[in-house]
């Protein structure tokens, strides 16, 4: 007997770029006419492969094309790939948030997906009420939650605040409660997006531990998407590498990761986001991001002794409170640091409509030599709400030109470390 619990066959997903207008209406009529005649959807032929760096000539694009794979019971499958490679689209199809354009997926067992922690949390409801609300949304019945109630409260460590509306929660408490509910789901198949990127290190460890426990201990199947090669390597026995909407490698995680690192070394100094391929957000949308030196000259490589600026433009559709954030990763996807615009007036006041821009400065002599990737985000701190988060938007290189004015001084041997600050040293005679 074979143990395949998910069988993905020829999955493709077509997206339409651009705005809804008269030509959309025309296309829809055309699609409908072909359907009546029993012919193939005409837009399928127009569609191009999803290569973001090329300007597209067609309005239609394949976000995914002919995806095939199988997952066995108890397996933890990792999915990696660059931004826009189709990871999120694949997850959305697997979790039934959107449907594929062609192909089919066969599933054995109950499936639950965790594309976000705290989906549906309502700020006015109490912790307890939100626990049930979120649990039900994730597909748990009242009985199941009742049974796990104490466990969940314990895991979250928020017993005293159960009857407090979650809008009074600190962001840490909020995330802990949300994850606690999710962690106690008991589906046969669990689909997890990189929700672990949010939250503190302690929480990440707990979350990863829980995931390992779920797959190893209970023989449940997990599909896991992450940018962190270390996490993928630790958790997943097999992985899929997606690039431009197709499976470019599928096999043992070690091999897939080394393939990914080999192919994914191109630097990106400026990126303009196709607002249509990226999921849109009704409140705000990030339009473009770029990295530059102190004179705003865009560049891919930076002198370690010079400060670096990261700018991103966004458009506000609804007046709302939110602030900017960035996250820095090293080549293997380890977090170097996160930063939020904590002193912003937009923690308390609403953004006005229209285009806006953020610039954040990374001080000189902070990063080490090497390649970094930067994600940009727009978020609300209390309660935690991430409006937009584009990971690995920018990729750049820091170089030490060995002039002797960096933290290296005149030493030119191996100089390890994730950061390389130039520190003040005091030396004096001791008694």
């Amino acid at each position, binding site marked *: 007997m074979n143990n395949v619990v998910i069988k993905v066959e020829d999955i493709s997903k077509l997206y339409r770029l651009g705005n809804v207008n008269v030509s959309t209406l025309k296309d829809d009529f055309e699609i409908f006419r072909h359907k009546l005649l029993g012919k193939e959807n005409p837009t399928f032929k127009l569609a191009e492969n999803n290569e973001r760096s090329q300007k597209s000539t067609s309005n239609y694009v394949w976000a995914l094309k002919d995806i095939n794979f199988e997952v066995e019971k108890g397996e933890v499958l990792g999915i990696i790939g660059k931004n826009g490679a189709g990871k999120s689209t694949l997850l959305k199809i697997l*979790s039934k948030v959107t449907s594929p354009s062609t192909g089919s997926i066969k*599933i054995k067992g109950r499936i639950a997906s965790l*594309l976000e922690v705290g989906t549906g949390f309502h700020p006015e409801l109490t912790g307890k009420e939100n626990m049930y*609300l979120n649990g039900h949304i994730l597909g748990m019945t009242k009985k199941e939650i009742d049974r796990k109630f104490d466990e969940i409260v314990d895991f979250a460590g928020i017993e005293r605040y159960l009857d407090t509306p979650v809008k009074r929660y600190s962001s840490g408490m909020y995330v802990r409660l949300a994850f606690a509910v999710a962690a106690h789901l008991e589906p046969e198949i669990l689909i997890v997006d990189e929700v672990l990127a949010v939250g503190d290190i302690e929480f990440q460890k707990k979350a990863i531990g829980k995931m390992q426990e779920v797959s190893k201990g209970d023989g449940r199947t997990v599909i896991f998407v992450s940018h962190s090669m270390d996490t993928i390597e630790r958790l997943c026995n097999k992985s899929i590498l997606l690039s431009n909407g197709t499976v470019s490698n599928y096999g043992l995680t070690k091999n897939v990761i080394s393939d990914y690192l080999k192919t994914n070394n191109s630097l990106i100094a400026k990126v303009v986001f196709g607002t249509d391929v990226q999921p849109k957000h009704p409140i705000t949308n990030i339009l473009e991001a770029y990295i530059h030196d102190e004179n705003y000259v865009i560049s891919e490589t930076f002198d370690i002794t010079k400060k670096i600026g990261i700018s991103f433009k966004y458009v506000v559709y609804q007046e709302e409170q939110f602030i900017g954030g960035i996250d820095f990763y090293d080549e293997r996807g380890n977090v170097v640091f996160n930063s939020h615009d904590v002193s912003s007036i937009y923690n308390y006041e609403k953004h006005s409509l229209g285009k806006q821009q953020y610039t954040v400065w990374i001080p000189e002599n902070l990063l080490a030599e090497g390649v970094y990737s930067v994600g940009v985000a727009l978020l609300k701190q209390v309660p935690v709400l991430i409006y937009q988060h584009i990971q690995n938007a920018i990729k750049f290189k820091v170089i030490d030109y060995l002039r002797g004015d960096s933290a290296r001084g005149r030493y030119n041997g191996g100089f390890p470390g994730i950061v390389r600050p130039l520190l003040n040293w005091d030396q004096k005679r001791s008694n």
Partner: protein
Amino acid sequence: MNEEKWTEEITPKRGIFDFKLKELWRYRDLVWMFVRRDIVSMYKQTVLGPLWFFISPLMTVIMFTFVFNTIAGIKTDGIPAPIFYLTGTTLWNYFQQSFTSSSSTFVNNAGIFGKVYFPRLISPIASTIANLIKFFIQIIVLIALVLYYVFIEGYQLHLNLSLLLFPMLIVIMAGIAFGVGIITAALTTKYRDLQMFIGFGVSLLMYATPVIYPISQVPPKFQFYLMLNPIAPIIETFRYSVFGIGSFSWLYLAYSAAFMIVVLFLGTVVFNQVEKKFMDTV
């Protein structure tokens, strides 16, 4: 191939009559939680809280009485104007609110729908029920006002057996609001133009419904057309069963009920077709 084992299959299309009622039933707890969320969050952060359930209908009635009765002089068939208007607006408000919340299902829930799957019909079902609870509270206001007129002003009520139809009236009204609401929701996901039209269309529809006038005040040759509005017979029947005045006809009621069944069926079909694709267009 061991086909027999698959418990679920994700495909691009969904059968037209594949209602997945079993799945809906499995998510029934979620319906109650959504209802609770809607009710609780409605008046949180307001000083007067649930009192708003009472204030808004009373203000409406005072205004209506002044404008339509005192200024415009529209007759109310001998029923005291305030309770006449309150019966009309209480019913109408329920219809309008249920319709509006059902029709904006996708827009209001884009955030949740983009992250997790549950049968999308859960949302409009929950909002229809939440509005129903609000409606019952407002019925209490109506009863209180009617009692005031009976005991203080000495108005003679003519309650009759047709009052037993009340639950049915509510079901029909809820069903129509829900059905037309989800049809609208399905049609507006891609093309927002329709939403603009619906917005003012509903507020205009109130004037084509005997809310601020009794059907008897309408010239006879228009009465038939007015009763084609499936909400009209409901309001007329309700007034008839309380006040003994107004028109009552099984035929029109049956028409409303048939209308409900058609829109419920049609609505579920188109809604289910759209729910899979809508995330790509919102």
